[in-house]
């Protein structure tokens, strides 16, 4: 009898994200960012988290503004279409959070080393840069074969990866399509994986197309049904990016007081994603729906 890992978002966050956890959230860089899960972390007043992700758009800024974060291991923290994240800026300038400065490639390689079970991976990026002065996970090494100077990136092994996907079954086998970012490395590197999914489907829907599986279900700890759970980031096959939300966040988060008002309205006074969608309004969600479908051909996995 297959086991179900299907739980509520509240239960998944309560059970798998204790205070002090190291969490990958936003592995798609711009798409499939688990905003619903991030907002539940804020509602549960989690503390002292270390966030891991190359670029997680405004979600890192929101978690920092809400006081959930002790450290960030990231390549870029801000608002992709407007620039700076004000909560991040204030926290770093005020010395309230630690930053491990990565590039997209070093962050991705750290997770891949974690996924591969090796202590580091070599790369040619970042040599001569000052990333080495604000990132103790980077060292220079000499290649034992060619004697070239290389950057060694230490493995990153997070406690939890939270991934948003298009569809999953109750055991955690999950389909993700579009650009992957570091989703596959994040899932394989982390001790626990929480899958947030637009749709819960029968296992056959997943295993009829195993190439599209982002990580095998045996590594998944919890599955959460979270339709619209990545809004305002885009989810291929489901909804477009809500640019207006990113622009309004930029306007509404410039001071601590503004951020507190934003958090009260969009997170604390919202019990769950249904409330959130009501607040957003049907007209808004309808405007984000796909207007042009582009289906692929089916492939034959037969024997």
């Amino acid at each position, binding site marked *: 009898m297959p086991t179900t890992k299907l739980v509520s978002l509240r239960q998944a966050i309560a059970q798998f994200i204790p205070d002090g956890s190291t969490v990958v959230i936003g592995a798609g860089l711009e798409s499939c960012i688990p905003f619903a899960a991030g907002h539940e972390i804020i509602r549960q007043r989690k503390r002292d988290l270390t966030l891991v992700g190359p670029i997680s758009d405004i979600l890192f800024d929101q978690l920092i503004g809400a006081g959930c974060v002790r450290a960030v291991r990231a390549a870029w923290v801000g608002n992709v279409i407007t620039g700076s994240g004000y909560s991040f800026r204030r926290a*770093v300038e005020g010395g309230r959070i630690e930053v491990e400065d990565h590039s997209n490639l070093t962050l991705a390689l750290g997770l891949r080393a974690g996924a591969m079970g090796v202590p580091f991976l070599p790369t040619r990026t970042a040599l001569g840069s000052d990333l080495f002065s604000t990132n103790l996970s980077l060292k220079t090494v000499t290649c034992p074969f060619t004697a070239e100077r290389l950057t060694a990136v230490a493995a990153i092994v997070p406690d939890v990866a939270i991934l948003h996907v298009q569809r999953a079954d109750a055991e955690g086998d999950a389909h993700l399509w579009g650009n992957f970012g570091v989703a596959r490395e994040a899932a394989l590197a982390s001790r626990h994986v929480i899958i947030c999914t637009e749709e819960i489907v029968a296992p056959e829907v997943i295993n009829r197309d195993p190439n599209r599986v982002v990580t095998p279900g045996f590594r998944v700890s919890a599955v959460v049904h979270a339709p619209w759970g990545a809004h305002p980031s885009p989810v291929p096959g489901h909804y*477009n990016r809500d640019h207006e939300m990113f622009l309004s966040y930029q306007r509404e988060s410039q001071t601590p007081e503004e951020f507190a008002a934003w958090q009260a309205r969009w997170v604390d006074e919202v019990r769950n994603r249904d409330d959130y969608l009501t607040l957003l309004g049907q007209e808004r969600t309808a405007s984000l729906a796909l207007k042009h479908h582009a289906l692929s051909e089916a492939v034959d996995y037969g024997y």
Partner: protein
Amino acid sequence: MAIEAPTRVYTPAELMVTAAAREIGDGEAVFVGMRLPLLGFQLAKSTHAPRAIGVYELGIIRNTPAPEPILTMGDLPNLCRAQWLADTVEVMSVLQRGDVDVSFIGGAQVDRFGNLNTSYIGGIAPGAIETRLPGSGGACDLASLAGRHIIIMTHEKRRFVPRVDYITSPGYGDGAGWRRRVGLTGGGPAAVITTLGVLRFDPDTGEMVLASVHPGVTVEQVLASTGWPLRVAAQVTQTPEPTAEALAILRRLDPQGFWTGHRAT
């Protein structure tokens, strides 16, 4: 050189995007950064470089322009009918093994050797950080590994400094030979496209040299907006204005003028 006023109505960003597009050769693989480069690549692709390939850090490679206007590379039209959708590590690997000809990055602070800072203004010690900027993203990788890279930024004295406070994305370090010494395999910065002109680098010294000024801008203005005694090319030219065709394409790619600042009248 006489000051020539602009003859066509366009925004500074439209001129910069057009200059960026001209840096792309037909058939080249282009690592496309955030913001203005998104438009520059699509403009080049729609005009003189139809065979250019776009590589994006999210894990996207495209050989056709996005079918609809996009504000950012993760917008779904930029994924639709891409040539390849993959992992960040895979597209960065294409870059690292030397298959990317040119890349584009923006910056907050740059120095005479093209080193770029998008991380810390002031310093990194506690109490010394005046401004924390978003960080590298893929910029450090593009500056380290691309065949050449183009920097796009606002030209102000506080941004053009003798020595950057923090090297997020390496240029020519402290001058000739530095990149080879530290082990970098990418070619280094080829141009800096600013709000005032276009600067290139002396191949012998790695130092920035003013190559062209935008219409209506004087060499003196550029010198006054640069925080070190800037070298000036023997023959400073005027940056070509965007053609009517280029402007029409840009206004189709960015109809709201979100990036270019263009407002329909």
